[in-house]
């Protein structure tokens, strides 16, 4: 399942704290030039998984490989290839921004002669130029988050692990941060955990959904939408005899189920909920069929949002992990 060139690869990874198993046999990979979104409710195991990949904690069983290095045995080599922004930005409040970034650059092995240009690069990417000389404890939450991101970008790591990178940012900053991640993800591997679902749809090529330490699904946002059982619904309101309308709708190819409710107080007016398959243009076919014989007042096609899919996967809370699609 994991390609040999994957920048991040997890193979049956489990994590136990004492008798309690937090992560159950996770297997997935992130390739170079790919941004993968990591979705899950609080306590699902996202942060623990991030920490195992970053080398903050070790897996109890299974294998975590980053940039080709096994994290159990060669985490030092791997650490040079990783940029990691934990859930709480790890900042030294008493230092100023430039001292802090300089410290991280030196530890990451950025050559002395390149430190200044490296600091300029990340400061410009994260819009920190005006606060470089300010002590970190004086910064707003948004700036602190961006200093944390800047730290992760130092040394041009091959793998970027971001645990909720846009938490605490205002909409403008979220947009800028997203652009930074997107441009970084073109050349590197990015694993991004977030609660903000539109963020995933906008920048992630694939999405991994986990709950209770199990991988429930991993696919592209579009793939997840296609795979969803409640994929497509067409809702319409028409004035028509219910039985004839139902028969007409069910005769159309692609309509699988029809539910009707009378509109209270109006003769013959019905709200119809058609379950359809995912084919293109089904709503147009329905509109033509209905409008040619009766009055059609309203018609809309509902596609599942990632939010619905996410909630459905998480609500199922399966005892065993499953990986549709």
């Amino acid at each position, binding site marked *: 399942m994991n390609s040999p060139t994957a920048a991040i690869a997890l193979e049956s990874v489990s994590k136990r704290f004492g008798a309690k198993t937090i992560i159950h046999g996770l297997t997935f990979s992130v390739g170079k030039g790919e941004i993968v979104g990591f979705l899950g409710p609080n306590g699902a195991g996202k942060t623990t998984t991030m*920490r195992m990949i*970053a*080398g*903050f*904690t*070790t897996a109890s069983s299974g294998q975590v490989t980053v940039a080709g290095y096994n994290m159990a045995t060669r985490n*030092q080599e791997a*650490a*040079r290839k*990783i940029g*990691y922004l*934990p859930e*709480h930005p*790890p*900042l*030294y*409040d*008493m*230092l100023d921004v430039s*001292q802090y970034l300089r*410290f*991280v650059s*030196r*530890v*990451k*092995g950025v050559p002395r002669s390149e430190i200044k240009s490296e600091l300029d690069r990340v400061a410009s990417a994260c819009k920190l130029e005006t606060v470089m000389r300010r*002590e970190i404890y004086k910064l707003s939450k948004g700036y602190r988050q961006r200093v944390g991101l800047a*730290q992760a970008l130092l040394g041009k790591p091959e793998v970027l692990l971001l645990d909720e990178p846009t938490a605490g940012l205002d909409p403008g900053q979220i947009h800028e941060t997203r652009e930074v991640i997107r441009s970084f993800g073109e050349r590197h591997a990015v694993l991004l955990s977030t609660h903000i679902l539109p963020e995933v749809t906008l920048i992630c090529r694939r999405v991994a959904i986990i709950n209770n330490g199990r991988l429930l699904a991993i696919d592209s946002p579009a793939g997840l939408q296609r795979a969803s059982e409640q994929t497509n619904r067409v809702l319409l309101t028409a004035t028509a005899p219910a039985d004839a309308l139902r028969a007409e709708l069910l005769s159309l190819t692609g309509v699988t189920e029809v539910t009707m409710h009378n509109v209270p107080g109006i003769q013959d007016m019905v709200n119809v909920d058609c379950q359809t398959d995912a084919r293109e243009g089904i709503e147009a076919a329905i509109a033509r069929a209905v409008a040619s014989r009766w009055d059609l007042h309203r018609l809309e096609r509902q596609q599942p949002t990632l939010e619905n899919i996410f909630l459905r996967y998480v609500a199922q809370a399966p005892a065993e992990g499953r990986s549709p699609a």
Partner: protein
Amino acid sequence: MNRVIAVYQKELLAYFRSPIAYFVVAVFLVGTGYFFAYNMFLSGSASMDETFRNMGILILTLLPLVSMRLFSGEYSGRTMELLVTLPLKTWEIVLGKYLGALTILLLMTAGTFIDLVPLYLFGNPRTTTIAAGYIGFVLLGMACIAVGQFFSSLTQNQIVAALITVPVLLSFWFIGHLQDFQASYALRSLFGYLSFAQHFADFVQGLIRSEGVLFYLIVSAIALTLNTSYLQWRR
């Protein structure tokens, strides 16, 4: 070594950007100055002996304030996650931090050199004895920092780290007193050997004994090794 220096410099910056280092150095110098003046003018002895003994006790209670933040501060500030995931070996973190705190100790020590001016002006002290006393003082301080640094890695509360370190160091200082209550020769020797105060007393008298030097270095090494092993185990 570059990474150890980076950690070391970060520690120094952190010390001097918080009030703690200034506070500890100031209290130590005021205390030492008082003891020095008291011993010099009231006892009339132009030597550092008594002052060194007082400095020993003082450093035992003040160094835990220097060492308490070394790891507790990283835990509570949630920066340990950064240190551990950066390309740093555990011993590099431990050593960089230790050297940072050691620099504060050396600054405190250097600050007391001012006492030597009147000593040499008005008395006729033996330089070798004073030098031995200072060597003993720094070695004692090194052991205290290492022990404090280890306890700092056990808790995320800096105050708790200091509150554990002070009684442990005081126990090592006073453990020699237990000798008087022991009938067994082995126990008497053991308590004598473990006593911070007894080894220090040799230095103050001008004796640089390899046993004393080794003792403080071994205590430091054990504490730093425990420190490193504990941090590795935590992962």
